[in-house]
């Protein structure tokens, strides 16, 4: 027995149909899985949203001051004022940033930004900056 007869006799057609079905079903499942990857990635990107409430609970349980936030602008201003006195006025802002990094002051970039926002450091109009004594006095009196 050869050829088509042998195939029919050994249920070859049925087996090939099953084989084809398995392959195509697998391909469909694979395609579906690939099409859903973006949802998994989106969930991964938003993972911090799920983490936040837990962090808040932890903070309530043990209130720890975040040293990264320049809450004590007074202390930061003292440190930066010393550096500015050392540089001399008017001073270049990049130099203050460089020195504060060298001295190991905590988060010098955002602290300088805070000092700018508080107007403790103000531009002199020529590309350099000066220490605002009036603002400092105002702050210390309040």
């Amino acid at each position, binding site marked *: 027995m050869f050829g088509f007869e042998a195939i029919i006799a050994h249920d070859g057609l049925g087996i090939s149909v099953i084989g084809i079905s398995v392959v195509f079903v697998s391909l469909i499942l694979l395609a579906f899985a690939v099409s859903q990857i973006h949802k998994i990635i989106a969930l991964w990107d938003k993972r911090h949203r799920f983490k936040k409430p837990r962090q808040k609970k932890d903070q309530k349980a043990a209130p720890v001051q975040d040293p990264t936030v320049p809450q004590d602008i007074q202390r930061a201003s003292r440190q930066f004022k010393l550096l500015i006195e050392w540089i001399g006025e008017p001073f*270049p802002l*990049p130099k203050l*940033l460089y020195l504060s990094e060298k001295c190991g002051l905590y988060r010098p*970039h955002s602290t300088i930004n805070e000092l700018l926002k508080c107007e403790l450091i103000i531009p002199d109009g020529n*590309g350099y900056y000066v220490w605002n004594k009036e603002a400092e006095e105002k702050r210390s009196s309040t």
Partner: protein
Amino acid sequence: MSTDIQTLKSLDLFADLNFGELEQIAPLMHLMKVAEGEVLTRKGEPARTFFIILSGNFMLSFKKERSFTLHNKGNIIGWSTVVTPFRYTGTAVALTDGLVLSMPGQEFLRLIQSDSALGDKIMRKINKIVSERMPYVTGTWRD
């Protein structure tokens, strides 16, 4: 991820553009997170990317350490991408975490050169900004 039209329309640089023009720009702009202390541009390097600030605070420094800071949405960094000799005139550092829109300089330049109406509207705004910032670059202020 490209930017939506509404975000672009809210920016001063693109405020005069119509919907069709904004549609041309949107696919070129990409949202980018910037971390505190990150350097966006370096003085003297080829100007390859143009940035528009969405949030955050930035310091731009120039020759002889002259500098100014940018704190507002819509402020731009990297106008040298569309002005010869296409080299950054200053160094831009993020003072805080922030979000910026970035655009490849060559594509921005190509867009400006290929559409004269659009190019004129954008270049008018950029020229104004350049003239405001030029004293920091050259160190000469007019009284």
